[in-house]
């Protein structure tokens, strides 16, 4: 291990990043977060138009 100090550093940083990302619970998924929505959605779900409305193969978020 002493022969490759840079690798060890790289590995430790990688593990640290992995641990951090895991801890914060992030994922690669793209989520679109909206502001507050009117409570009427529950009663009339069809009235809500999300950004993903309508079929097209999921291209990706903004």
């Amino acid at each position, binding site marked *: *291990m*002493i*022969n*490759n100090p*840079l*690798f*060890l550093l*790289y*590995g*430790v940083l*990688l*593990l640290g*990043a*992995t*641990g951090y*990302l*895991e*801890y*914060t*619970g*992030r*994922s*690669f*998924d*793209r*989520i*679109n*977060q*909206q*502001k*507050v*929505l*009117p*409570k009427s*959605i*529950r009663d009339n*779900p*069809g009235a*809500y138009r*999300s*950004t*993903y*409305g309508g*079929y097209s*193969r*999921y291209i990706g978020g903004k």
Partner: protein
Amino acid sequence: MSCSLVSPPLVKAKSLSCPNCGAPVTLRGFAHTLSAVCPNCLSVLDASSAEFQILQTFQGKERIQPKIPLGARGTFNGAVYEVIGFQERSVQSGDDFYSWDEYLLFNPYKRFRYLTEYLGHWNVVRVLSRLPEPARARGRAAARMDGHTYAAFDSMKAATSYVIGEFPWQVRRGDTALCEDYILPPYMLSAEQTDGEVTWSLGEYWPGSKIWQAFRLPGSPPDAQGIFANQPSPYQGKVGSAWRTWLWLNVALFALLIVFTFLKSNREVFRQDYVYAGKNSEAAFVTPTFEVSGGNKNLEVGAHADVDNDWIYLDFALINDETGQTFDFAREVSYYHDSDGTEGSRNNSVVIPSVPGGRYYLRIEPEMGPTAPSTRYEIFVRRDVPIYNYFWIAALLLLIPPALTTYRSLAFESRRWHESDYAPAVSSGGGDD
């Protein structure tokens, strides 16, 4: 009490006149010198007898200047040696012609040493009194000595093409010897065979800077070109330790994975079956509410659909019943299979990073193709899940440094062996560096 008239107490270097041109020739090798070259007319003279006869006159066109001058003194292994002889040896094999230089180093109390130099690569050589034994390694010829195995590298017929200074044997321009080299970097075992006998010697690779330091020469040594037979690899030892480090890093990564698997509660907070009955069923609907524990942990929302060679597109909105905060996302679940294999999966999910605790419900809008049959699907929500993707990516990224080191080491060795007798055949004349 040894004072003898036969052996004078202080041995002086003899100086004689060249029988060809009259210039003075000093014998710095004392009585060891058997052949001496006149520094003026370059005739090879027989120094073994008092007559100092001419063995060979110089017919060549130009002088060669040795890179280390005759008379220079340098320190090797704690002892001072003086350069007293110089030879250029050349090899002609087919269209290839190349040459290297040899320097004879002398100390009246120690053995002779030799320096060889080829394209800026130096070796410090000593003659062996013990014999290596023939061996085989990896299907090729090798030599074994003192428990080490040296791999055969090349063999050639070398001729003395230029000589100045003194030598403890009879030397003439045009003398040939059959040379064989065996390597174990940084060492090289060489056998030189003339019809009388075989002489083995062991060389150690020295970089030019070390040679220049030993002789305290001005300026800098000639640049080393290409990779030499016994040049030590800069990756020596690094490949093995890189993979050992990789192993320990993976163990640590796995331990990290275990830790997080236990730290995350990974609790299911909602699961429900639904059926998509075609365009006739309602386009969008909402699920009952469910409780999500406190803290800003992640939330996984996913679906399992019994699709068979078909797809279902699910548009989601996760809505906080109290605050109205909404997360928008969508996922397609598609699964195809035929005689060639499968594509896709019956599962798909999304992980939302920081979801505050509270009461939530989902708004779901499913969609399938116009001819899709009635399909059952299941929606689930899990709180505080581990994300294994990161570990896979980290494992992959960890592979890069040892793989790179291994590649570089192999490339170095490949360049080394390209110069040997065992290089893969090249169609056109493999140009020497």
